[in-house]
């Protein structure tokens, strides 16, 4: 939730005017969303992408690292519908496995608190003014004044080996080695770090909204009847903040997919040989390859751009849905 979503005035207006009803605001939002054709289309695209990613091992015709040096740079054929890359690896399979990586990556972000942190802290800061609010705000300021990319690189440089060792140790205990081998461990660290630096924007938005909601009638009523902080937050504030959160999450999922590309390019993201869109795009982006075999760049670029586009459009549609005065 690191992008400003906008239209707060409108959000306040609607949510103030509509105190909690029987149906949750989230449910209402989703229903209205599904009525929009564009949103449904986006969801379909995302669903196809995720399905391809999750079922890649079953669906892909070849392994992602199966090389055949004799078939380097071959064009589309029956065996290789998208052609092959420099090492003769099947591009269709590689793209599917790259999608899989993106699925893992986006999940990692959510797990790493990409939305838990801003939500929790925003609620807390907004509802409990004074010392807590001040502390959270100042902490946020300090954290976000650190330039993200250098800090990310530093953290990666300093902590990565230790972290991966830690995860390996953990894996030895539970006898499952999928975490390190799929690159998940690498990514978890990066995205934890990203969340650590990135929660501030989302926190601010939620806090701002909670500040306004705080004086809404139904909240005052609940307080008057003796409801505790936790109850008020969970039953009254949280549901009304969720739509905003949804917008933020869908937009940031797109940003996460995009930042994977950037981070892999820098060498901080997914390590070889795990395919990822970052790896595929970097391979295809060098000038001669681009000139002679443009499909090596264009195919992964279009796929991931479509995904990000779908996420962004979805966020836009969600935004429209929760904004009154819109269609």
């Amino acid at each position, binding site marked *: 939730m690191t992008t400003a979503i906008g239209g707060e005035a409108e959000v306040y207006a609607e949510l103030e005017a509509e105190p909690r009803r029987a149906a949750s605001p989230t449910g209402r939002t989703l229903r209205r969303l599904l009525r929009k054709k564009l949103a449904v289309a986006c969801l379909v695209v995302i669903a196809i992408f995720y399905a391809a990613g999750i079922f890649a091992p079953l669906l892909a015709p070849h392994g992602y690292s199966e090389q055949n040096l004799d078939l380097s740079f071959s064009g589309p054929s029956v065996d290789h519908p998208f052609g092959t890359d420099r090492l003769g690896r099947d591009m269709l399979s590689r793209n599917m496995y790259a999608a899989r990586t993106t699925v893992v990556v986006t999940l990692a972000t959510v797990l790493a608190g990409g939305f838990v942190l801003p939500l929790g802290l925003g609620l807390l800061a907004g509802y409990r003014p004074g010392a807590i609010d001040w502390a959270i705000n100042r902490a946020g300021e300090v954290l976000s004044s650190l330039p993200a990319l250098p800090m990310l690189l530093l953290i990666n440089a300093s902590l990565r080996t230790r972290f991966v060792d830690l995860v390996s140790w953990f894996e030895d205990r539970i006898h499952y080695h999928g975490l390190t081998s799929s690159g998940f461990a690498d990514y978890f660290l990066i995205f934890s770090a990203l969340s650590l630096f990135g929660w501030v924007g989302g926190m601010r938005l939620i806090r701002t909204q909670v500040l306004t909601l705080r004086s809404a009638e139904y909240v005052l009523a609940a307080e008057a009847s003796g409801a505790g902080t936790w109850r008020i937050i969970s039953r009254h504030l949280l549901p009304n903040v969720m739509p905003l959160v949804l917008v933020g999450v869908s937009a940031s999922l797109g940003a996460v997919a995009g930042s994977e590309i950037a981070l892999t390019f820098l060498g901080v993201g997914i390590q070889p040989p795990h395919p990822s869109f970052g790896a595929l795009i970097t391979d295809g982006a060098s*000038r001669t390859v681009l000139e002679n075999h443009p499909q090596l760049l264009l195919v992964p670029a279009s796929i991931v751009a479509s995904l990000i586009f779908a996420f962004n459009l979805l966020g836009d549609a969600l935004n429209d849905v929760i904004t009154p005065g819109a269609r």
Partner: protein
Amino acid sequence: MSSKLTIAAGAVAAGLIIVLAVVLILVVGGGGGGDKGSATGDTRTPTTSPADNGPAGSGELRLRGPDPLVLDPAVAQDADSATYIVEIFSGLVRLDRDLKVQPDLAASWDVSPDGKTYTFHLNPKATFHDGRPVTAEDIKYSFQRALAPETASVVAENFLGDIAGAKDVSRGRATEISGLKVIDDQTISLTLDQPKAYFLYKLTYPTAFVVDQRQIQANPKRWTQKPNGTGPFKLKEWRLGERIVLEAYNNNVLGAPKLQKITFELQGGSALVDYQDGNIDATGVGLDDLQRVQDPSDKLHAEYQQAPRMSIDYIGFNTTTKPFDDPKVRQAFAMAVDRQKIAEVVLQGAAPIANGILMPGVPGHTDDDKTLPYDPARAKQLLSESKYGSDIGQVTLALSGAGATAGPYDEALVQMWRDNLGVDVQIQQAESGTFFQDIDQGRYQMFHIGWIMDYPDPEDVLDVLFYSKSRQNSTRYTNPEIDAKLERARVEQDTEKRLTIYRDVEKQLLNDAAWIPMFFDTAHVLVKPYVKNFVVPPLVVERYRDVEVTR
């Protein structure tokens, strides 16, 4: 409502201005680029006598150049800085195009019968850029400065440490090098700790170059921005990160360069496009463009040259850790690699396959293939014969990189090991900052790395990398027999005998598969037809003094 908004808008605008101002003020110390080269007291008009040195050159060469880190020859250790240092500074001796030692500031030298003392006779025409003649005192100062702890040079001890007493200076136990004697203004003698035949080569390295004592003492922090060197070119301009301009020093001891000026652009996008547009006169060719340029029907082909470089790309094994402590495993891995295929497909013929450890141009190099052949069947057999059999555990190939992919090269290797040995090797990309350190600490089982020669002598690779007590011994290879041979070769005065020992050592190392030597390096360049005598030496040595531009 609107007045509040106007205030807010005004606040924002004011704020913008304030922030910009703050940033600019903080930054204005550096200003809008440009070097602060007008340091005190170090630019003096040269006293010219051009007749002595032949006619001054003309013409300008425009190139792309790397960004140098530091222009102090005592400290610099990277090739980027060396590119300029070898033109601006010089030393007692130099390497010519064929990498033979030739006189530079020293016109001649004698070697004592025991091989330990070298007496250099300086050329009376040797001068600094400001015209001041070079004396033996300058040599003494330069060497002592390079070794002094305050200079904080990491390499000085390596290149000057063979001089008796040098190590005392570098470790702070003395201020003068006991083995260095100034006999008179034009004569200086160096006594070594052992009669090492390769010592002269080490003097061709920048650490042994001469610097101007007066300039440094007058301006210790900033003298490198307008250095008073002795080389064929002067530093005319250095805009950090943008451009470096070198200008001919016509009174250089070996004669005026044929060029007047060299401009290096330090930034920019594709160099090839710049070359095609005519903005630069020569450029290196990257792997991506190589195939095109090598194609005889391409119009750039006529301008294409290639030259061998003295470096080698190899896979090193950590010989003290499982599974590579067993030579059979190492041999198996070596013989499972089809280097020919990688060269063709991945590298597209950009680099020749290494036929040994010594590269072409290094004395002791031979043209026959001394490496273990590609033999997958035998490789598999060796692996099963090894003490680990089929259970060699997890194997990881470490390489340094900050790029997105390991490079198709490494992935191809992994595939070959998988296909031919049934071993699944993991690739671990280590951050370049810690890669060397990690190798030092023995963290990796095998690593993909390169070695660049600093001087053309087999000692610089066979001894430095395989002597058991050498600090550079990244493979931790220990073999008393080889140690003994190396020690003998160090002091052997007869060149042929010496080379025979080294060839022997090389063969033994290859059979023992301490490395998988992969590829030698080649420089690929495009040079405009109006540029003559453009050479690409195999090492970083000065190269521009004979270039002519007839545009």
